[in-house]
């Protein structure tokens, strides 16, 4: 259906409030992060002065002993959970897409069911168990429960991706004289890699977003960024941590937003292909 110029412009006009609604809170966090402490509570949306003091406070200042380790923990925990999940899910999704075996549907249904578990329901028993066996407040103590978030998601999304791959091309390459290894490396890997990569991105975001496990199963050593944010305090006890929290929020948000900007199309495909009839 071709749009008339009038329709074209009215749709463009409607898109402006939609984009504003999305961007206002984002710019607001940035605005709070660059407002110096003295005008932090001036109730103005736009900053009248710029300063890096909030960023200094959290990266080298008094709040750095809270933020820097949390950033490292977040990256380490999320990377480990993502790698484990995606590697396991790759084998699993490959089997589901290419092989005939009973229980395929069961695996997919269970992974879907598991991804809607109320996270807090896993926390109580794990809190008790982790304290007894010494996993409380450790990196593995977070990675293991994170698998319950990341593994079903990777299986589900990757299976959807793999089912769209024209696997016959592998045989076609072999018929054309390629060795098995060449066929795998030159044909299958390029076909499967985008799906695996996108799944890893989506999986990483999910782990990166976790708050419930992080505040419940850690106290100080393994605390991740979302949990640390909730426990920030100001430069002195008389100051609100608003600026510090906002600066930290900006730091952890920027890389993720950049990834979304670059891989927008793939992420959309990954998020929707598992959920909608293909």
């Amino acid at each position, binding site marked *: 259906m071709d749009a008339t110029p009038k329709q074209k412009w009215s*749709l463009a006009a409607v898109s402006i409030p939609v984009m504003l609604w999305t961007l206002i809170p984002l710019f607001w966090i940035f605005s709070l992060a660059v407002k110096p402490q003295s005008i932090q509570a001036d109730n*103005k949306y736009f900053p009248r002065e710029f300063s890096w003091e909030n960023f200094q406070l959290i990266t080298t200042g008094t709040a750095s002993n809270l933020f820097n380790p949390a950033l490292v923990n977040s990256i380490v925990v999320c990377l480990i959970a993502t790698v484990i999940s995606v590697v396991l899910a790759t084998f699993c999704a490959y089997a589901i897409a290419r092989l005939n075996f009973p229980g395929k549907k069961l695996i997919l249904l269970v992974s879907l069911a598991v991804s809607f578990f109320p996270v807090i329901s896993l926390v109580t*028993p794990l*809190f*008790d168990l982790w*304290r007894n066996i010494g996993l409380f407040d450790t990196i593995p103590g977070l990675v293991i429960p994170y698998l319950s978030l990341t593994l079903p998601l990777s299986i589900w999304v990757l299976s959807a991706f793999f089912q769209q791959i024209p696997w016959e091309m592998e045989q076609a390459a072999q018929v054309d004289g390629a060795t098995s290894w060449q066929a795998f490396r030159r044909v299958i890997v390029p076909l499967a890699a985008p799906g695996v990569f996108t799944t890893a991105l989506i999986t990483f975001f999910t782990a990166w977003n976790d708050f419930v496990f992080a505040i419940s199963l850690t106290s100080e050593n393994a605390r991740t960024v979302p949990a640390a944010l909730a426990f920030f305090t100001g430069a002195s006890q008389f100051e*609100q941590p608003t600026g510090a929290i906002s600066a930290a929020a900006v730091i952890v948000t920027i890389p993720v937003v950049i990834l979304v900007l670059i891989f927008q199309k793939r992420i959309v495909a990954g998020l929707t292909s598992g959920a909608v009839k293909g």
Partner: protein
Amino acid sequence: MSTVTDTPQTRRRDQHRPKLSDRARAERKLGWKLAGPAFVIMLAVTAYPILQAVWLSFFRYRLTDPDAREFIFLSNYSVIFTDSLFYQALWNTVFITVVTVAVELVLGFAIAMLMHRIVLPRRTLRTIVLIPYSIITVVSAFAWLYSFRTDTGYVNGWLNTLTFGAWDATFDWFGSWLPAMGVIMISEIWKTTPFMSLLLLAGLAQIDSAMEEAAKVDGATFWQRLFRVILPNMKAAIMVAVLFRTLDAFRIFDNVFVMTRGANNTETLSTLAYKQTIDRVEIGMGSALSVVLFLLVFAIALIFIRGFKVDLAGSK
């Protein structure tokens, strides 16, 4: 999303073959060898804690006093079901779920329609709309918390200007139940609408545009086309999106924890379970609450799948 190489027909035929060939048997074995580890680990990290929670919920068990641990069978549950705190949390959770999913469905659909039709800033719009999805929920919660708080926020000032001074610029959004719930829901809606609209956009994209064109030629108005052609044809996508978001909204925790910590009766089921477990270290009671929450989510999923015939397996 176009071609699926292994059609269900060929698969079914293979399964009904009376005797398996060696090759088929080897394939089954290999299938489980590859899929097994992921499946087993997934079950181990979820089923085990849930079963443990069921077991612990039968005890009076406080972490500070482990020796007094005592088997009391269903007493924790009878405490829960007679306590007004639980019903307040249940009501809040249901309220948030119903309102946010309803608003997101309308808003998400409008945005999906816009993304589907738009010509001009097409790519830009799609990218910007996706951004909240990637923002950590806690960050979204803080952004909205600071927007509405009287000491830092701009919202009161803007409302005051928009109403020519009629709006009280010192209005305390977190001082009473309804406004606090409102802000919590705004943050939730902002963060999760992109996911909803993406699922709906995928549904929209699959509607045969010729059908809509035909309705238009026959003189159907926009609303007639919307309710008679578009919506009925994307019912499956709508139901899946609503199911996903409902189950997700029902476990709301982050926004409530950051904004109110349950003050002014804004407790939800998840924050209540958290408080029992982590703040009060009442493992028995916390487990019972976890089990109740789990069963509620399970029931919602069943109602959707049985009652509304959401065909999840069919999406494969």
